[in-house]
């Protein structure tokens, strides 16, 4: 049976540290990948998987009563893999096989190869539509499962995100929660310089969502927002989580706009892990 997994605040902090360490170690071992885009979503996935939100069972990943978490910004795969390993879908030792030939931990998530991955993503903008399909099936079957989809702010430039938002809003899909990892940067520069999105919460409200803007690195705020989302009826919910690209590693935080799709060099790894803090 899918169940929620509720850890106290100290437990959540330790999980977040471990997830950050996994992200750094896996991408540095791989020699490529997107650590900065993964580090911004750590508190969000930590609360989803360990803060009593998602009901899941790693031994039965296809149970139709499970809640779903869809990572639409597929390049943050190292963050997804880290939380799935922590949750028990596969051994944490496998994380450093990231991007290696033969490993199911591909550069972007492949749902056919790794349990717990709900959607194959990496071509941006597609996760919210897939999430709607799940939400409609759940509603049709009369189940009380919920669907959470995490999109990037740069990703929100894709038209399909807004096709999906229009549909979810117009059909009152209250079992759907969309979370924006608003880290402010895309590949070449700040989102505000490329294609400003503000007022992003107003945009989602105009499309029929209930919205909240939070500090995406506050475990308490993320937890409160996800509690709030579960209480909303008749409308989908959008949580705009303000985050920092590369959060937790000084080297990346200092160069936010200029650090996309690059691992931390091996000679900087131990310093990064030290900044993140001990695993337990």
């Amino acid at each position: 049976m899918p169940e929620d997994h509720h850890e106290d605040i100290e437990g959540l902090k330790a999980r977040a540290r471990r997830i950050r360490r996994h992200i750094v170690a896996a991408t540095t071992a791989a020699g490529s990948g997107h650590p900065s885009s993964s580090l911004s979503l750590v508190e969000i996935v930590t609360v989803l998987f360990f803060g009593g939100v998602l009901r899941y069972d790693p031994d039965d990943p296809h149970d139709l009563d499970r809640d779903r978490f869809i990572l639409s910004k597929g390049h943050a795969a190292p963050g997804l893999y880290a939380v799935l390993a922590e949750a028990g879908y596969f051994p944490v030792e496998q994380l450093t096989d990231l991007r290696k030939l033969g490993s199911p931990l591909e550069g972007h998530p492949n749902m056919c190869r790794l349990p717990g991955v709900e959607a194959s993503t990496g071509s941006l903008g597609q996760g919210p539509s897939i999430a709607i399909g799940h939400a409609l099936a759940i509603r049709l079957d009369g189940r009380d499962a919920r669907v959470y989809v995490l999109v990037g702010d740069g990703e929100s430039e894709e038209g399909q995100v807004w096709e999906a938002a229009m549909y979810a809003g117009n059909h009152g899909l209250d079992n759907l929660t969309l979370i924006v990892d608003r880290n402010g940067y895309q590949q070449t520069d700040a989102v505000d310089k490329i294609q400003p999105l503000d007022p992003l919460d107003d945009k989602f409200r105009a499309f029929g969502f209930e919205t909240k803007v939070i500090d995406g690195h506050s475990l308490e705020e993320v937890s409160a927002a996800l509690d709030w989302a579960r209480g909303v009826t008749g409308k989908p919910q959008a949580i705009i989580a303000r985050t920092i690209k590369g959060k937790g590693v000084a080297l990346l935080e200092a160069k936010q706009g200029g650090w996309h799709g690059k691992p931390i060099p091996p000679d900087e790894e131990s310093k990064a892990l030290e900044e993140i803090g001990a695993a337990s």
Partner: protein
Amino acid sequence: MSFGLSHIDLEEGTATRQAFGDALVAAGTDERIVVVDGDVNNSTFTNGFMERYPERFFNAGIAESNMVGIGAGLAAAGKIPVVASFSTFLMSNAFDQIRMSVAFPNLNVKLVGTHAGISIGEDGPSQMAIEDIALACSLPGFTVIVPADAASTTAATRAMLEREGPTFLRCGRPKVPVIYRDGDDFQLGRSNQLREGADVTIIANGIMVAMALDAAAALAKEGVEARVVDMHTVKPIDTSAIESAGNETRGIVVAEEHLAYGGLGATVSMVASEKRPVRMAFVNLGDVYATSGKPDELLVQYGLTPAAIVDAVRRVLKD
């Protein structure tokens, strides 16, 4: 429409899109089947299903990318989604969603494109899917079906829903001649030989099957015996029928309502060149977009006629 038929007398049947819509209603007793349509349900004929099973019908509006993604999510959640629109808006507009959200994860989504080809007529080239077979065949794991008439579309719809895996079914707008009776043998991936002949083989699908039969009747009057094969499944293609054609006849003509590149002709050539190279000729739309016009006028204008098939046979048999 006459489809240029003058040597055989085939009764006019219903359109393949209508047969698909009717078969879908009949299949709807399976509660796993759901339909997502791009607000053209009175054209794709999914409206029969909508009226019968409104709770399992979703109108995605004019937003094909989202429509395909919703279908993918429904399939991942255990449903059997039929995602329908005009073939060009489905396959061309939403191609990356089909690639990324359906083909790559190998989800059990049934894509149905109607109004394919130039036989839609007056609405013109923006509405004509003539690249759709190439796009669908390029996707790993996809089954691609182009039925010739109503009865085979009914059988194809049933087979598509029973078979697990991503599928593209291509239907047309006009009423088409009757070639099969209900209950005739139809298996995905196995072509149907409709006429025996030892001189040449004509491989066709969709509306070109009736024309191939007409061309074969015309050729018989000249003493040329043409085998006619309905290659309704373009992928996976019936390689043994192509090999037999190569071994048992002097050449192959491939006729289809599609551009030259990436369609049935390209696929048959690939198989024939490896298994049994023979002389070949092709009847298709070449490398151009069509225009507006009456369907029969367009078929003549763009060379999709029984006479064009006869000419292609002569090219193949020329010493």
